[in-house]
């Protein structure tokens, strides 16, 4: 059994040996740091991407909660009454009834057409719930009194070669057609909006499709998004419609993310395995080159456990410093990116999200890899015949 004095001597030798070759020292620390950074950063990026997708969906589409008609109903009725009940709930900060229809947009000059989703809302009410108004690329957002104006997504506008000020013909599901002026082009960073949606005001829509006191859906914003489940139970008795939270409305995204999740888990596991192997190889080679030193130590009276202690301490030094620097660098980069987000594409910014649990798990795995990689060759070398090693020099 090794005693405290031997541990102190082993620590002394480990420190001397570790600092003997700066190049190897730096190489191992950098390799460990970058391995950790790779794992933490990719995961943070994926988490940031997922968060951004959720945030965009909530901020631009679903709000915190959505009320929709029963399956056998086309509309929600008595909307004014429902709105009053919802407004009476403290913590509800925005309510926006919406009307959804299918329509055909026709660009008159070249007679280009596209089938699209038409969404009607009252802009001042919608602005309390979503942040669609922040996504205007050119032109202006709708005002409550606009009756002959529409907003169009950037991709759809590009496809139909349309710009702000252009006039288009809209054909609604009931066969009625009307000319509108494009007031603004949206760049939301969501395909569903940029390619597939056109927005009009409720006032304009109501002129030719009577939607008075009814709606296709009501989107709601709460003061605290974390209270959605509580509010769901509060709202259910207030309506005959179905009450959804943003979570249930984004289940389709969640399913998609789960399938990426498998890829991410595999990527992370492979990343950890690759990093662990790389670290193991570097430390293994480093320790294996110390056979002569190990044999000398044995010859002058160093026990196997003493020798193992030296290389265990060395591996601990490498492991701790590598993980420490890796985490510092990862935290620094992620901190920088919090203020300078990654612009994945126009209108879609990704801020990586630091995952503490993953950072801890990856740190532990890499630390154990460094430890194993250092101890195994030392253990092998400690078992080597001293005479062969020393006189074989």
């Amino acid at each position: 059994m090794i005693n405290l004095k031997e541990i102190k001597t082993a620590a002394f030798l480990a420190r001397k040996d570790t600092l003997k070759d700066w190049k190897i020292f730096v190489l191992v620390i950098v390799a460990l740091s970058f391995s950790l950074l790779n794992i933490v950063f990719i995961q943070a990026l994926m988490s940031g991407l997922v968060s951004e997708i959720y945030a965009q969906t909530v901020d631009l589409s679903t709000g915190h909660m959505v009320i929709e008609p029963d399956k056998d109903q086309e509309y929600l009725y008595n909307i004014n009454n429902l709105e009053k009940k919802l407004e009476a709930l403290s913590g509800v900060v925005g309510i926006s009834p919406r009307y959804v229809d299918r329509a055909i947009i026709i660009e008159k000059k070249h007679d280009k057409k596209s089938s699209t989703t038409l969404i009607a809302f009252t802009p001042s009410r919608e602005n309390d719930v979503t942040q669609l108004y922040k996504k205007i690329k050119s032109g202006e957002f709708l005002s409550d009194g606009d009756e002959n104006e529409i907003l169009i997504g950037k991709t759809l506008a590009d496809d139909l070669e349309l710009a702000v000020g252009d006039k288009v013909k809209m054909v609604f599901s009931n066969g009625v057609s009307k000319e509108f002026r494009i007031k603004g082009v949206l760049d939301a960073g969501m395909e569903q909006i940029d390619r597939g949606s056109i927005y009009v005001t409720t006032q304009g829509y109501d002129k030719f499709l009577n939607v008075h006191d009814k709606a296709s859906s009501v989107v709601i914003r709460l003061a605290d998004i974390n209270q959605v489940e509580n509010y769901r139970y509060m709202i259910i008795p207030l309506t005959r419609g179905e009450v959804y939270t943003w979570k249930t409305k984004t289940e389709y995204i969640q399913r998609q993310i789960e399938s990426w999740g498998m890829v991410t888990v595999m990527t992370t596991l492979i990343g950890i395995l690759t990093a662990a192997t790389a670290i193991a190889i570097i430390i293994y080679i480093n320790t294996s080159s110390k056979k002569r030193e190990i044999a000398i130590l044995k010859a002058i009276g160093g026990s196997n456990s003493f020798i193992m202690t030296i290389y265990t301490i060395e591996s601990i030094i490498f492991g701790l410093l590598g993980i420490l620097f890796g985490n510092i660098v990862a935290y620094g980069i992620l901190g920088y990116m919090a203020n300078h987000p990654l612009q994945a594409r126009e209108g879609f910014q990704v801020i990586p999200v630091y995952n503490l649990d993953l950072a801890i798990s990856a740190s532990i795995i890499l630390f154990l890899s460094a430890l194993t990689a250092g101890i195994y060759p030392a253990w092998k070398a400690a078992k080597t015949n001293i005479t062969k090693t020393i006189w074989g020099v």
Partner: protein
Amino acid sequence: MGNSIIITRNLRKIYKMGKIEFSALNGVDLEIEEGEFVAIMGSSGSGKTTLLNMIGLLDFPTSGKIFLDNTDVATMDEQQCTSYRLKKIGFVFQFFNLLNELTGAENVMLPGMIKGNSNSREKALELLQLVGLKERAGHKPSELSGGQQQRVSIARALINDPRLILADEPTANLDSNSAMQVVNLLRKLRNEQNQTIVMVTHELELGKLADRIIWLKDGMVIKDEIN
């Protein structure tokens, strides 16, 4: 057994290299008294270093007995051998075998530190003074000449006050002047500290500085002469 510190009885060592067996020691019987300075001589392949390794517990005999200080070391396990080496044997190697990352003083104090001595540094400096290298205590092996490195290595062998010093061709890599200094230093140690010294050498001139020369040939003692 009197005051013999080393006794070997019918010591044999056979090395196996694949299907080929090579007999390095063929029944060596010898006794070395405490405080003796003995040179082991012989041509290359005569078994000198193998014998030294057996006495130094660095290797195990195929058969036969070794008694060190009246202890049958054949019954010791590896851990006991290591502990015995640490406390009772000092080694001086042909290639010095100092640790390059340590200074001269640190190399000398190392076995003392492993043993757990608290005054290793002071003692290391004393020993470096004894071998005439106190002023080089802070130098690393790469900054020392071959002769100086070997003297550091001798100081290291002495740090735990071993009763036995084993030197394997300690002068083989030194010029004649340095070689003479090293052997004279070993003699001085024997005279002043009454340590038993067993030195393997192939240089007769140096062997003659020992009290006694044991000649080996083909793994057997062929002559044992007092100088």
